[in-house]
């Protein structure tokens, strides 16, 4: 509309989050613990405190004609652009909310601000556009053809086609484990564990679509909602009693975001919960003695601070023969992020790897020889960072550790 003046569109930001922006006392607890603005780099504008300050300043100027006239539209546009960059230079790990003396729901705040950035035309960042258009065109963010999605499963005839017959458990593989050859092992491991437990498992193959996690983290809520509705319809048509996923991001999206987007609550479990339950029921045959190994566990943000799944992975590690868990100083709620989440790795790989290197350092301090995690994306990033260092510590997905100890 000609003559109309641009402004931050907060119509999708929950009122609760807007109240929380005003509740911030600028104490700085979040700033020192923020992986991108406080730990890897010292950049105040990237910290939660810096972002809240910028949001409030911009909105004050936009709501005050005099201040707006004094600031000028060009300056305001620059401020909005800088804010958008800061909002995306964040892993949405939730450490700030954990550190906040008021326990502000910062995860919701930052995701809402990304949605606001998209609605205001200042987000996502250029680097993210390829991911979004890939999901739009190929149903995955990695620009891979749909037909290749279930190819890895050809080596596993025990995994059934869930679209053609009834299954006990529907394995939702996720995009990263479907296409990334390095991470595909996670899918194969899970297939082997479930086979050994005698669970009738199926997957969707080329019918499976991205869960929409990437879209939600980048603020593309409209597209994510459409995808969520399609997925829920597909899951309902399969009628599986349990949906299991090995990806922490997919788990958060299916269990936490889908009920908000579609109103439907799915019977979803993360692989750590399913495997722990099967181990508890003694349905997974383990070898009597495993090789003695000292491991440390990295809590993925999506499985930890986002969905509070701290105990299942630790229960698995506790039940594996020969495995001794040594906790890092920062564990559970206080665990450091791997640096990859929230689209940061796509936006600034160097920064993501610097954060991952700090996590590897945390792990090395424990003296453990293996760093275990339960998120393919964390594993991918931490492995890269570990290779960049002396390579003293191996990075493994938790399913790999279980498979190594299966009774042959």
């Amino acid at each position, binding site marked *: *509309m000609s003559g*109309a*003046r*641009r*402004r931050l*569109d*907060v*119509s*999708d*930001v*929950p*009122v*609760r*989050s*807007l*109240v*929380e922006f*005003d*509740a*911030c*006392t*600028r*104490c*700085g*607890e979040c*700033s*020192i613990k923020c992986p991108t603005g*406080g730990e890897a780099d*010292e950049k*105040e504008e990237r910290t939660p*405190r810096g972002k809240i*300050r910028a949001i409030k300043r911009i*909105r004050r100027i936009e*709501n005050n004609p005099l201040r707006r006239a004094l600031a000028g539209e060009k300056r305001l546009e620059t401020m909005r652009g800088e804010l958008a960059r800061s909002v995306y230079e964040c892993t949405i790990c939730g450490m700030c909310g954990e*550190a*906040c*003396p*008021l*326990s*502000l*729901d910062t995860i919701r705040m930052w995701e809402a601000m990304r949605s606001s950035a998209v*609605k*205001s*035309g200042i987000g996502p960042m250029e680097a993210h556009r390829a991911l979004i258009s890939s999901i739009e065109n190929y149903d995955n963010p990695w620009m891979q053809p749909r037909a290749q999605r279930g190819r890895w499963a050809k080596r596993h005839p025990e995994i059934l086609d869930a679209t053609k017959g009834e299954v006990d458990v529907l394995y939702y593989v996720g995009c990263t484990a479907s296409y990334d050859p390095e991470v595909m092992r996670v899918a194969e491991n899970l297939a082997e564990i479930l086979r050994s437990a005698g669970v009738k498992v199926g997957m969707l193959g080329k019918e499976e679509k991205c869960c929409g996690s990437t879209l939600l983290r980048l603020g593309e809520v409209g597209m994510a909602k459409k995808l969520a509705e399609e997925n829920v319809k597909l899951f309902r048509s399969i009628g599986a009693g349990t949906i299991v996923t090995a990806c922490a991001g997919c788990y958060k999206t299916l269990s936490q975001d889908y009920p908000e987007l579609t109103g439907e609550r799915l019977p979803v479990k993360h692989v750590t919960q399913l495997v722990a339950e099967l181990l508890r029921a003694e349905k997974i045959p383990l070898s009597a003695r495993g090789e003695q190994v000292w491991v440390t566990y990295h809590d993925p943000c999506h499985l930890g601070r986002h969905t509070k799944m701290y105990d299942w992975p630790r229960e698995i590690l506790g039940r594996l023969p020969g495995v001794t868990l040594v906790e890092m100083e920062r564990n559970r709620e206080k665990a450091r992020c791997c640096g990859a989440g929230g689209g940061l790795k796509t936006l600034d790989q160097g920064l993501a790897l610097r954060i991952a290197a700090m996590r590897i350092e945390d792990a090395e301090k424990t003296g453990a020889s293996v760093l275990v995690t339960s998120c393919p994306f964390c594993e991918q990033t931490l492995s890269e960072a570990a290779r960049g260092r002396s390579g003293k510590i191996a990075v493994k997905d938790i399913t790999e550790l279980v498979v190594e100890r299966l009774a042959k």
Partner: protein
Amino acid sequence: MNEIQGQRGKGRYLFDRMGVCLCLVFALAVATLAIVLIPFDNTYLEGSGAGDAYITPFIAMAVAAIAILILGLFYNAMVWMEGAIGGVEAEAPRSRKLAVSSKRFFGAVFSRDFAHHFRIFLSDALLLRKLWRISKTRWLFHALILFGFIGTLLLDIVTVVCMDILHSQQFIEPLGWGKLWIRDFGFEFFGLMLMIGLLAAAGRRLARRSKQLVTGREDVVSLLFLLIVVISGFVLEGVAMKSAIPGHESPEIYSFVGAAFAGVLPPISAQAYAQLWFVHAAISFAFIAYIPFSKLFHLFAAPLAIQLEAIVERRAGR
């Protein structure tokens, strides 16, 4: 990118504005009436020789400060209402959003979960349980400021009610318990708490250079403003004691901070006391009016955010 005043119909826009204006006018009228109807007896000024000269401007300032406070709170609430509320269409008038969210909020708090929400308010908003776990020192600084502020505010209300409305002799007579324990000791105690807390907070900002502490203009202004309010109050008490103004005689043990200030102040006339009283009142009212437009607005927003979180957690069954 959206546009200011988007595509909403003119009627709806007017309805939005009218709804907001009606609520606002009602709140302002109630506050103004309450202030104007209080029969201020100017006991504080008795004996200073200034008489009633300062009372009318005092009431005018009180009305203006409270009006600005209410306007500011409304303004901030309206800014919040630009956001989304579940079950209410995005284009709904902000007055409707405010009505819906207020109804939901108070409905959730004043329900059978009231005890739970009250407990959360006490432990998380008032006693800042999490800050206690993070840093005992910072908790102490904050508690001194918060409880000092709340204490002096409550004592102000008690004094106005007992002295100006009920004309309680206990608050007026030099040796009445209200005079000794509320007007003298009470204000000294909470004022001292506030002053120590503010000085400690300011000292921490000056002494510590860390990336956690970033001191902006707003931080400095808020700290200084509150410090000036509390110090000017002690100066006033000191002047009254030094000048032996009738009606302000106070045993030093009850007005211990005022007595300390009296010890370092030059002798001053009763007339100057009245002027100082007016200046102290003006600064205090300016401070009240400043709250919604400063970082001190967290006094309202932080407890509200904590309570909203508690409501969401309760609904989710956590």
